[in-house]
């Protein structure tokens, strides 16, 4: 029985290694593959907001780097589509 579990662990290890190698090839490098796996981990799918929740407010800075405004100032008369992201 013990031999079976050793064999099973070995095969599982080889399969995981092979899967990571394939992912590394697809992603471009092992570092990129590792990053993608991190994206998929459960803790990355965070967020408690739900449909129907009050939309949180936050203060933002305008492109001039000085002016400030609140997200809430843009809501009210029409739906507001918020697109979060960055250049990289």
């Amino acid at each position: 029985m013990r031999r079976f579990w050793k064999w099973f662990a070995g095969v599982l290890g080889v399969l995981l290694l092979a899967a990571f190698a394939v992912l590394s090839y697809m992603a471009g490098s092992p570092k990129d593959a590792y990053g993608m796996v991190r994206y998929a981990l459960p803790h990355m799918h965070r967020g408690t907001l739900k449909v129907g929740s009050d939309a949180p407010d936050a203060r933002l800075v305008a492109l001039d780097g000085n002016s400030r405004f609140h997200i809430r100032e843009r809501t009210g008369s029409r739906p507001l589509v918020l697109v979060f992201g960055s250049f990289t």
Partner: protein
Amino acid sequence: MQIYNDYKDHADFLTVYVREAHPTDEWQMKSNVKDDVCYAQPKTLEQRVVIANDFIKRFKFPLPFGIDDMSNGADNAYSAWPERIYIVDEGGRIAYRGGMGPFNYKPGEAREWLAARYGAVKHEAPTAPASGAPSAEAVPASSPAPSPATAAK
């Protein structure tokens, strides 16, 4: 940008610029190097503002824009990093909550929400451009985390 062009007469749009997804001093992707999108994670608001302005200039990005300050308040409130879409209705409530990027980031879902309310906007398939002429909708993406420019498709 197409979704913005299609529905800007019906809904407001706001791009919220958050902390970098693939800065040079963290997890930089090869595609970032290829697309010449190489920035360290900003340590000051001024640095973040500079990068945001670079983005605007490079893509002639037309959407209204706001930058999260260094407390990352908007990012934390909306669990937005690296990219995400929400729609807030007229009552200030979340009407659409998009998945977290890159794998669950689906601008098509936001388009479906808008289409359900205001009608679908169809586009004819583009004809082949003249050789050497770039497509007006082509936006280089730093995969797997597309820039905000690719969000509003």
